[in-house]
């Protein structure tokens, strides 16, 4: 929906391709773009302000190496800074630190509907996979059927659930559950709590009392990735009342850019630990700062992609192709080469996941199998055919289909794809002002097209 930051920065820097140093004048516009991108991603207004300040300081005077373009250098600075704030490059917080004296007690907290109960279940599943004996505790006595919800999840997971349907005292339930856990030799106790507003003093006090009663090893603040500007207020209040030990960001399987992650990290200073990526109990992953940074900037994991591309594509190859492309357009040999480059960078599936807007596309027609098919078709062509798509009449197409064990429709599709590619390349060339350098935007467009 929004043009990505990359596209915008490309535009900004086009005027100054020759520039060798980033300075106050040439980054003002770019900083504005970054600011917009962050605000569109729901990063809090004030947090954005601070961030822009530090990026500006870092970017000033940075030299643009010959091999790179100013937008690449700039975006890397922005990205790196974001990664740093979110936890740094060698992040290792995506886990639960278990108490050497079991049971380890984990308490969930957060706004209504943020995903506490679901995440409690997912966490139980994760720890059970690590052979831990887990107890889930139904500490939400307010929401209709909250206990049933946790018990249903417990049944799915085959996990013990402690509940007390008679009790109207959430603090006591937690304390009783802990005693039960000790008696039954549980390794981990996960306490679900009712959703509450950070401004609800009574219910916030209840959480504090629960904390005092069971002294949790982990207090996990659960936030919805779609949260907007208010994330700072909510996270700040919860953290001030409870001293959270970590953050879970849920509903990351949607297309929210998730700027709340940055806001929450900034106001709490607490590590982001896990992300929820679906409603199923297994859809739960460790948090990675670099992926989150790219997502917030709206560029998929484009930086990783560029780095991998730079590592795996021999310069010669890329230049050759650029030159050819400029002169004659692409043929099937080039196509094969391109696919091979992509293959070198990692599986198609992992690449697709890094691309904005494609993160959720089901792999369907672009999986590895499809790639094998394409390879087979091209290998069944004569040299002459590979260089001259135009001569592929129906007789030749039938033969190729037979030779590659595919159908004529498959062959037709590939021919169309090549034509499409050529059309795209032409457009892209125009957009890039004639430059043939392999850059992130181009890589993305290229991949998107498939």
């Amino acid at each position, binding site marked *: 929906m929004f043009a990505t930051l990359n596209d915008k920065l490309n535009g900004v820097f086009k005027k100054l391709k020759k520039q060798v140093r980033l300075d106050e004048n040439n980054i003002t516009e770019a900083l504005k773009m970054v600011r917009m991108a962050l605000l569109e991603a729901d990063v809090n*207004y004030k947090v954005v302000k601070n961030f822009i300040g530090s990026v500006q300081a870092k970017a000033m005077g940075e030299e643009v190496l010959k091999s790179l373009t100013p937008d690449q250098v700039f975006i890397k600075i922005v990205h790196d800074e974001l990664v740093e704030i979110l936890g740094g490059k060698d992040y290792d917080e995506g886990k639960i630190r278990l108490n050497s004296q079991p049971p380890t007690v984990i308490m969930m907290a957060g706004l209504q509907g943020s995903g506490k109960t679901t995440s409690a279940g997912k966490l139980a599943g994760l720890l059970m996979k690590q052979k831990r004996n887990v107890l889930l505790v139904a500490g939400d006595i307010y929401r209709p059927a909250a206990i049933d919800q946790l018990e249903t999840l417990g049944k799915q997971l085959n996990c013990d659930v402690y509940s007390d349907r008679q009790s109207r005292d959430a603090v006591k339930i937690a304390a009783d559950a802990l005693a039960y856990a000790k008696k039954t030799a549980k390794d981990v106790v996960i306490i679900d709590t009712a959703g509450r507003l950070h401004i609800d003093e009574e219910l916030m006090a209840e959480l504090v009392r629960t904390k005092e009663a069971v002294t949790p090893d982990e207090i996990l603040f659960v936030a919805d990735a779609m949260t907007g500007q208010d994330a700072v207020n909510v996270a700040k209040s919860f953290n001030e009342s409870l001293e959270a030990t970590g953050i879970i960001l849920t509903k990351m399987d949607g297309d929210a850019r998730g700027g709340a992650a940055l806001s929450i990290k900034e106001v709490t200073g607490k590590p982001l630990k896990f992300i929820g990526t679906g409603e199923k109990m297994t859809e739960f992953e460790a948090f990675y700062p670099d992926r989150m940074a790219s997502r917030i900037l709206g560029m998929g994991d484009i930086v990783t992609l560029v780095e991998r591309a730079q590592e795996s594509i021999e310069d010669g190859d890329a230049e050759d192709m650029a030159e050819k492309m400029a002169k004659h357009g692409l043929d099937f040999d080039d196509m094969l080469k391109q696919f091979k480059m992509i293959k070198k960078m990692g599986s198609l599936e992992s690449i697709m996941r890094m691309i904005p807007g494609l993160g959720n596309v089901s792999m369907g027609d672009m999986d590895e199998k499809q790639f094998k098919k394409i390879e087979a078709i091209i290998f069944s062509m004569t040299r002459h055919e590979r260089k001259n798509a135009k001569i592929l009449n129906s007789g030749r197409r039938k033969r190729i289909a037979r030779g590659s064990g595919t159908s004529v429709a498959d062959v037709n599709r590939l021919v169309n794809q090549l034509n499409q590619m050529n059309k795209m390349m032409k457009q892209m060339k125009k957009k890039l002002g004639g430059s043939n350098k392999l850059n992130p935007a181009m890589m993305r467009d290229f991949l998107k097209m498939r």
Partner: protein
Amino acid sequence: MGFFSIFKKSEKTEPEKQGQQESSESSAGFFQKLKQGLSKTSGKLVGGMENIFLGRKEIDDDLLEELEELFITSDIGVETTMKIIDSVRDQVDRKTLKNPEDLKNALKEQIFNILNIDNSLVQTADRPYVMMVVGVNGTGKTTSIAKMAKMFKEQGLKTCLAAGDTFRAAAIDQLCVWADRVDVPVVKQSAGSDSAAVIFDAIQSCKAKNFDVLICDTAGRLQTKVNLMKELEKIVRVAKKELPDAPHEVLLVLDATSGQNALSQALKFHEDVGLTGLVLTKLDGTAKGGAIIGIVDELRVPVKFIGFGEGIDDLKPFDAQNFVEALFDTNR
């Protein structure tokens, strides 16, 4: 024109000439009843000081920046904020807005005009009147349904619920607890059954038993999930087999806490199932729900209700003026 038109909202939000010829006597009475329910007011969202404008004599850059901050932190979004501020910039430049007070009023009017579209319920002579409630996960669909059911029931309308969320753990139990409290029946099947079938059954049964209103719960789904959105389309298709104009209302429930993704939600749900209204929940928190301004501006789909608590009575019809006042109330 001008400031005072803001106060004329109550006339504007009346259904005016809705439903014309086809609305029979009985259906006019029916909507009369609905309207009574809708006219309940509460001062909860109004009042407070307006700090930004306090003690200012001039419209200067500082003021404009503070306004920008106010708008952005209310989740109005960059694009809509720029659009709103641009719309008054001209007047500032031409000096027709002389002081901060004028500016504030112009901005309020601008936003009010966007939001103040007819938000009466769709009218029909069909019985049951079928409402389908949709949205992403955890926004407050099920709770809002319970609140609406109570409202309709209090109008003396025979109201029934359909447990269309057959997926989420204990979703059916949750709806049943609410239905018990409100004392309305629920049509349900077992967990994991086909949601469209449940709703089809519910319409059939409401027809047979002469129910006035049927409110259908659906599972929360992110708008990016193609299969789940298809399922929603199927529910609509199947409902139409039993009652061609059903669902008469398709309400998208949006969480006031959510940011710019709300726009993506609204666009996609509207595209796939055609929305007739929005419900904005969780306004009892500190989030202002400003994202709806851009949504209403873009889709021209009205906000019909707001939710402001977990209690059964914490729902009321949306009032554009109250909303705008609350937006500018920086003390909240």
